[in-house]
């Protein structure tokens, strides 16, 4: 029919579409780092608590199997750090240099041991690395601080209740205070 001859418009729009697709493809940046593990796998790690290393099993035999990574910032690192620990601040974990370093450790299938001033400070870095697909990343459950210019490492077991809460509450509520204090709404002080 007649309308099949009119091909000017369709050729023109076809060229525009091809151009649009090419421009789209050229300036498309593939995501540099991708979360490999899905969230449930990470949850299994957390629940199984297999990522914890205490200072007890830091004996010399396992030492060369482990690569220590200090995730604190440079300043604290310079003040004091574990022997042959490499300093990678959590913020620049995703930099190329650090990623290649970790990749190298991974290939030599060393266990990557993270530690910081407190275990929960290192748990963020741990979660990022496990989800990025690094196989055995562990956290050293120690508290590191710098007392009279000596770098001390003390064990810091996780989640230990300071008091026996229930007993303490019972004792606290039953102490008969002489002044019968009415329940007074605290004045907002600050």
């Amino acid at each position: 029919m007649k309308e099949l001859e009119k091909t000017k418009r369709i050729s023109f729009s076809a060229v525009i579409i091809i151009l649009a697709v090419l421009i789209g493809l050229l300036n498309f940046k593939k995501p540099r780092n991708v979360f490999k593990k899905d969230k449930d796998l990470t949850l299994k790690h957390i629940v199984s608590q297999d990522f914890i290393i205490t200072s007890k099993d830091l004996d010399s035999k396992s030492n060369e199997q482990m690569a220590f990574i200090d995730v604190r910032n440079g300043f604290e690192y310079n003040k004091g750090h574990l022997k042959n620990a490499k300093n990678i601040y959590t913020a620049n974990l995703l930099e190329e240099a650090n990623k290649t370093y970790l990749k190298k450790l991974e290939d030599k299938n060393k266990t990557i041991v993270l530690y910081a001033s407190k275990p929960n400070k290192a748990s963020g870095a741990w979660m990022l690395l496990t989800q990025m697909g690094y196989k055995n990343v562990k956290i050293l459950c120690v508290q590191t601080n710098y007392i009279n210019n000596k770098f001390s490492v003390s064990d810091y077991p996780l989640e230990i209740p300071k008091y026996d809460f229930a007993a303490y509450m019972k004792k606290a509520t039953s102490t008969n205070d002489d002044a019968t204090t009415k329940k007074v709404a605290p004045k907002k002080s600050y």
Partner: protein
Amino acid sequence: MSKTYKVKKVIVKTEYKVLAVLLIILAGGLVLLPKYEKNSGIKPETFLLNIMSTERYVTTDQIADKIIKQDPNLLLIDVRKKEKFDAFSLPNAVNIPLADVLSSDSEAYLNQDSFDVVLYSNDNCYSDQAWQLCNRVGYKHIYVLKGGVNEWFNTIINPQEPKSTESELTFKQYDFRKAAGMYFGVGNTASTTTKVKPKKVIKLSKKKKKVAEGGC
């Protein structure tokens, strides 16, 4: 059908040939594009930023203040195990053990925007990890109680007596903590105050999944 059966040769205009070739190249191009791993959910870069930021922490004083004022959109979630939760827990807290933070029924509590969710455990470790999981999955308005229940006891239940040389501000804080402690039942003999607060029943609407609904 048509009477004359001589096959008329179909002349295909050159434009159509070019267009057909372009179409096939365009469709074929999809096949040749290099595959790459798609990132599902939050990007690692933003995840790292969220970990580094500390504005997720809420201090025990703020929480005590909110509880006393019966702040309606405060939702305390205890990520410890069940028996620890039964032994002692903050008032009106909901227990979601760390193991099923991502389970479907706990999603109703975590994935909603009508409450400010505050996670707490004995110390900061479990609550931080729970927070990171929620962040990974994309939940909003989630905070962590700094120091957890240990800190709660250090400050609210038996606050340290500030030495006389301390600044006036710490004295004020100490008074507030002392009074807050009384509110939570420390030291007042007459246990007339209703010990068991009425369990705040939290009505939560399941958040609709984001798939576009449609159909004709």
